[in-house]
């Protein structure tokens, strides 16, 4: 009988939660925003999403085959990256933008640094910033069948009036997934209820950002201005889905709050004083780079530390 027993060091039980279920939940949580993006921008958006997701998954698969490593596309993390990247592209972008972005995100940002869990920068955002710098005119052209002209955030920056109701619903110009505040918040609530993300980062991020624009925005505490800033651009998508990316945010609880505060301030600076209207992607990427430092200074105090021995 003895040769049939399995032995291992304790604990001997494990929770049911796996990396796959977490990634699948994130994908489900992104579906409202994705669905609204397709509804809002039509078939071109759908095609761009499919191409981008296919390119991220395929890049990971081919890289791992080529390097003779175990294939890990089954954990769905490449799907999440592809989907997030696609939601950050303008619907009018050509298909090859999705391909280049997907390859850059997976190959350069993720796999070359060691694959899942080793990248220091959010792959989707890294790719987006790369595309913004390399193909600026494509990435900042939000004209499509449904909308022409500037994004609401650009209008806000220029001091022109915007329709806040449409901004909250999402019926405005912008990238595929960022326009609908409601769809994003529904997905985020799903993740919060499942306990996959919590409010530490999004909460401190949004709160800091609001305080920052109240002080420096030149509008004081103006609800219309604040809601336009919150609903416009990639703030909601960034705060709930990109800043909370496990791999590239601090692991310590206080570090997460610090991270959120940093992002809030940086986004405020980029949006108010930068040349463009948007600054969420750059803020998060900058924040990603400071994560090791933030983790170091927010190392938690262990239980009972400082107690006196008698």
């Amino acid at each position: 009988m003895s040769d049939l027993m399995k032995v291992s060091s304790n604990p001997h039980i494990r929770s049911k939660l796996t990396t796959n279920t977490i990634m699948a939940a994130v994908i489900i949580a992104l579906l409202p925003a994705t669905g609204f993006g397709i509804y809002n921008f039509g078939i071109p958006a759908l095609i761009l999403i499919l191409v981008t997701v296919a390119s991220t998954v395929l890049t990971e698969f081919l890289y791992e085959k080529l390097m003779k490593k175990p294939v890990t596309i089954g954990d769905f993390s490449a799907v999440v990256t592809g989907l997030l990247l696609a939601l950050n592209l303008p619907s009018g972008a050509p298909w090859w933008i999705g391909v280049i972005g997907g390859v850059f995100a997976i190959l350069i940002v993720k796999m070359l640094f060691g694959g899942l869990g080793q990248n220091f920068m959010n792959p989707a955002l890294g790719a987006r910033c790369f595309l913004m710098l390399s193909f600026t005119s494509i990435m900042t052209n939000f004209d499509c069948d449904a909308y022409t002209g500037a994004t609401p955030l650009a209008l806000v920056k220029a001091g022109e009036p915007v329709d806040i109701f449409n901004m909250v619903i999402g019926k405005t110009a912008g990238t595929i997934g960022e326009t609908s505040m409601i769809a994003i918040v529904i997905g985020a609530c799903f993740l919060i209820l499942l306990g996959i993300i919590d409010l530490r980062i999004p909460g401190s991020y949004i709160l800091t950002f609001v305080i920052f624009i109240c002080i420096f925005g030149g509008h004081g505490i103006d609800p219309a201005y604040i809601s336009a800033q919150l609903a416009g651009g990639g703030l909601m998508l960034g705060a709930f889905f990109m800043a909370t990316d496990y791999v590239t945010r601090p692991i310590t609880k206080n570090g997460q709050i610090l991270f959120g505060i940093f992002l809030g301030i940086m986004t405020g600076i980029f949006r108010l004083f930068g040349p463009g209207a948007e600054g969420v992607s750059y803020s998060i990427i900058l924040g990603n780079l400071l994560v090791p430092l933030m983790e170091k200074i927010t190392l938690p105090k262990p239980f009972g530390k400082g107690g006196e021995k008698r």
Partner: protein
Amino acid sequence: MAKLTFVGGIHPYDGKELSKDKPIKAVLPKGDLVYPLSQHIGAPAKPVVAKGDHVLTGQLIAEAGGFVSAPIYASVSGTVKAIEPRRVVTGDNVMSIVIENDGLYEEVEYETPKPLEELSKEEIIEKVKKAGVVGMGGAGFPTFIKLSPKEPEKIEYCIANCAECEPYLTSDYRRMMEEPQKLIDGLKVMLALFDRATGILAVEDNKPDCIKLLKDLTKDEPRIFVKALKTKYPQGAERQLIYATTGRAINSSMLPADAGCIVDNVDTVVAINAAVRENRPLMHRIVTVTGDAIADPRNFIVRIGTNYAELIDEAGGFKEQPEKIISGGPMMGFGIFDVNVPTTKTASALLCLTHDDVSAMQPTACINCGMCVEVCPGRVVPKKLADYAENYNEEAFVANNGMECCECGCCSFICPAKRPLTQLIKSARKMQLAKKKK
């Protein structure tokens, strides 16, 4: 009232329904009884019998081998068959006294006990020491040392650990339901040692019947209080228990006495009671035999030294082939490869599972999700510590509070990547502790 609890912790499937409603059954050993000389923390006991000697139930067979040590008593009458190394639950071979049971259970005459009021504090501690009582929750620390802190007048709480937070285990629950008075009397013995102390019976709130029973029985006891704790693993871990009941936090280098507390688990308190009020040494303990592979899971009152295999037979044998057998609970117990080992003073359970989670799930890359940080009751960063442990980065391991880990296993349990975090941290801690000893 807010629930008494701590920060962190997990909610695993508790499996207690398998065995909790069946009364404790007494088992008589069939084969030889084996008494490892080291079934406590500290120096191994020294045999005082030789091969061929006839012994009676309750007779001293090995005396304490040092200050931190405990004597061992025969739990049956019979003949000493051998004194030789035998395998124990941890897989080690430990020098053991083997007694052939004559089946007569002739018992030694115990001294007529004096009432508690007539005993001095020194006499009480001496009786606990003589009876070989050790922490029966698993650690096996000699209880008389716990009961004699440097400054006894500073002890404010005597806590009976009735949390039983470990999944599947129901031995404390059954003991409390069937013999609650012994527990309360044992706690009174402890309180007799510490004039300023309050007694606390700390029970998890998944045992409401037990809480009610103990409350009824202690309503006229001015010094004893029943406290309901939130059900969460590791609620019964000493540091978490003290925090939940008193709000005091102690770290790894402190003892409960530093926070004015003495903590003992249910079986230990009952053993203190037997030692002081009945002059009876520690010879029995309750063992839960359970798991989905066992035909009739239940609790047994076992003569220490009985072979585990006999307990499995008593519980109806296996209804399905087990894949893993654990001595103790699933969070803190030892996986064993052979059931042909003796029960000891610290053997709380025998858990037979048809399915082994650990081998079914392969570790994958860490995604830095931080769930280990969320659940860690020690408030360290298990992910980082495990990385340092894996890379033998001892300096960083210590600098990042690696020694504050209490090895409760929550991080390994929760990890979605199924990484063996606790195991890595545990081995690094062992190395550090071994270095300190040198």
